[in-house]
């Protein structure tokens, strides 16, 4: 059991802005929360390859294909940085992955929406990665050293993701009327789900206060969401795209953009597994994991054989 003295010392370190490293003493609950949010973050990066991977074979040009391949590969990398970071807390990667595939570990709901047209790929880069950057920039200052460092690495790559999407969308938005319609349609479908990426309102977010107290997060869901909205209003206007919210108005008093009610019913139903793509995503991930089992075994057997051979030779 954690003693009060230990907890106080720990809190003092956090309040001093010190980073917590894997071998440092930490409250059981801090460790548990970190494993939860870090692995959730890792699962999201991995499942996030699916909606975009859907378009790799159908991109309009070779240049865009190279870009999309590189971006999807980066998402795999992000998942790996985060799994690696989570393992520093003494959990096995295989367990994390199986908790997700066969247990009840979660991943970001945004990836349970389909990518219906190529414009969705533009919008994922712009809005989804735009929202992810806001979140991850904050997490790069997290109190847990390995998590902060993984996010720092991710942020460096994420700005390429966002810019390539924004650039493509800008192009589409000044194209033919059909292209414009496609671009606007994709934005209309993705806007609200990206607002939900920041999680429930602070008043409905049971974990927030604790995560902030421990410096795992440094800003609340609503603060991050507001930051995102302010930024996106400006960026949408610059490329002639409309955000599908009639209530968006600039508030002179606060200096921020006020926005309409977020459809939380939809959010909770997607979290609970009833989004348009939940089942398909989980099936695809399970299939990949199970279908890859013989490859993992074969590679391990090959390495064993090679080692034996070398030992014999020496």
């Amino acid at each position, binding site marked *: 059991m954690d003693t009060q003295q230990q907890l106080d010392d720990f809190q003092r370190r956090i309040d001093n802005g010190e980073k917590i490293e894997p*071998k440092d003493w930490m409250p059981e609950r801090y460790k548990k929360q970190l494993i939860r949010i870090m692995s959730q973050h890792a699962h999201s990066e991995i499942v996030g390859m699916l909606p975009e991977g859907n378009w790799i074979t159908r991109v309009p040009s070779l240049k865009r294909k190279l870009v999309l391949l590189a971006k999807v590969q980066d998402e795999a*990398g992000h998942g790996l940085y985060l799994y*690696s970071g989570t393992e520093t807390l003494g959990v*096995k990667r*295989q367990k994390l992955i199986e908790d997700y595939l066969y247990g009840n570990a979660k991943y970001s709901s945004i990836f349970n929406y389909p990518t219906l047209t190529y414009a969705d790929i533009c919008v994922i880069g712009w809005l989804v990665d735009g929202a992810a950057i806001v979140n991850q920039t904050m997490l790069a200052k997290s109190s847990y050293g390995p998590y902060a*460092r993984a996010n720092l690495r991710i942020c460096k790559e994420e700005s390429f993701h966002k810019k390539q999407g924004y650039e493509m969308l800008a192009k589409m938005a000044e194209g033919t009327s059909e292209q414009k319609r496609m671009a606007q349609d994709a934005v209309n479908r993705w806007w609200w789900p990206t607002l939900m990426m920041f999680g429930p309102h602070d008043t409905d977010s049971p974990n927030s206060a604790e995560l902030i107290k421990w410096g795992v997060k440094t800003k609340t869901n609503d603060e991050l969401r507001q930051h995102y909205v302010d930024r996106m209003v400006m960026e949408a206007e610059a490329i002639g795209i409309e955000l599908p919210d009639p209530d968006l108005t600039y508030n002179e008093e606060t200096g921020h953009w006020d926005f309409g009610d977020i459809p939380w019913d939809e959010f909770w139903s997607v979290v609970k597994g009833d989004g348009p793509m939940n089942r398909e995503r989980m099936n695809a991930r399970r299939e990949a994991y199970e279908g890859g089992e013989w490859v993992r*075994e074969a*590679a391990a057997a090959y*390495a064993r054989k*090679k080692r034996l051979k070398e030992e014999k030779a020496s």
Partner: protein
Amino acid sequence: MTDNPSNNTEWPLWEVFYQPKDGKPFEHAGSLHATDAEMALQNARDTYARRNEGIAIWVVPSDQIVASSPEDRGPFFDPANDKPYRHPQFYSVPRAVKKRK
């Protein structure tokens, strides 16, 4: 296969270090799983150096790393604490030569 997902097929863990530039010291990047050293090097390149972050890579089996413990930080580094004479600031220099560029 779904019935028994927990077959242990996890590969060994490796720590990855890279040298960011010529003449710079190696730094820790993170870890990864690989069956052997060769695969660890290739995975390290694909995971941690997709944008020329490093010009050379070291991989080390994670269980081969020996680390000091944070609880012993005080006593462990104590020998260095009372030896200010190891620093140049400990010594005084005539004013005339102090500002030498």
